[in-house]
């Protein structure tokens, strides 16, 4: 669901700040680069404000951000809504005891980790990343939080890629995703 598209005047400003870099990291991929958004303080602030306005008052106590670009958007949202921030990382980055969730890539698989004890059963959580493509990483993130007993209220991304047929079929009916600026 692109809940904000065509409604909020700030969306257009955000959309125009995202840079497309062709053939990165591989030929054929049109990479959606959010670093240019971060160079515009007003557009970056609008991005955060849109998420904060949506989630403030929803009793969310956990914002989980996916390494590394989820670390850019997640903390400002967490701080503004009074939630803790939980980093979800590639293997061997988090020290101490972790739980792991494997997910499938186009070729092979990868793994996302979360600290044991970061999230308590019954907490209401938000997952944040810059972009949703196949949804594989977000699905792994949701699994980690649910395994710890949290309720994933929503997945929030700045950008949605158009071809999400596969992703929609993986989503539980009671967990939704939200994006701001479809490409």
């Amino acid at each position, binding site marked *: 669901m692109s809940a904000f598209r065509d409604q909020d005047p700030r969306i257009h400003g955000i959309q125009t700040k995202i840079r497309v870099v062709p053939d990165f990291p591989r030929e054929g991929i049109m990479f959606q680069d959010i670093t240019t958004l971060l160079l515009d303080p007003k557009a970056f602030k609008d991005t955060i404000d849109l998420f904060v306005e949506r989630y403030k008052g929803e009793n969310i106590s956990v914002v989980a951000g996916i390494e590394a670009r989820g670390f850019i958007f997640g903390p400002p949202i*967490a701080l503004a809504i009074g939630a803790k921030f939980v980093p979800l990382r590639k293997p061997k980055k988090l020290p101490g005891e972790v739980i792991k969730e494997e997910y499938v890539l186009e070729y092979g698989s990868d793994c996302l980790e979360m600290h044991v004890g970061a999230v308590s059963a019954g907490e209401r959580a938000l997952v944040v990343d810059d972009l949703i493509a196949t949804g594989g990483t977000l699905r792994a993130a949701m699994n980690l939080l649910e395994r710890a007993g949290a309720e994933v209220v929503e997945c929030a991304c700045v950008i949605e890629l158009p071809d999400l047929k596969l992703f929609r079929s993986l989503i539980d009916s009671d967990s939704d995703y939200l994006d701001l600026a479809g490409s």
Partner: protein
Amino acid sequence: MFAGEHGLQGDPRLKAISDAIRVVPHFPKSGIMFQDITTLLLDHKAYKDTLDIFVDRYRDMGISVVAGVEARGFLFGPSIALAIGAKFVPLSKPSKLPGEVISEEYVLEYGNDCLEMHVGAVKHGERAIIIDDLVATGGTLSAAIRLLERVGAEVVECACVIGLPEFKGQFRLNGKPLYILVEPRQ
């Protein structure tokens, strides 16, 4: 310089921030007492206080660039940038940033590593601060300083949550002041 010696003597927020940091022994290698800031991120008040201290220090210094070292610098830099009206510039390991980059190599205990910044992100004459979670040898921060100076920015200060005690007093890294909140925990 340490915040507790310059302007924030006796500030109770500093002890709470230090207490919120977890030490994980023998990570990533035997003998290293790893300073884990993820527990700070779970403590909303202590996390907010960390950022507020940096924001209060930098808000009136005419800073237009906050550069953060990937990945843990991303946990602090963007919030500071948003609060002081500056842009946030990520400094990343090789092959992470798309498009044209400049690279700066730096020395590790064994071998080298490399830090990259986007061409065009920072303009000549801009005043910048650099953020990371922790400073140990200063190798990564030195590379970051060089990247910003190569494009003509003025690095006003480097800021870290945690720093080794040898950075007390008037210690400068590549001639730049270091501002640190707490020492490593045992």
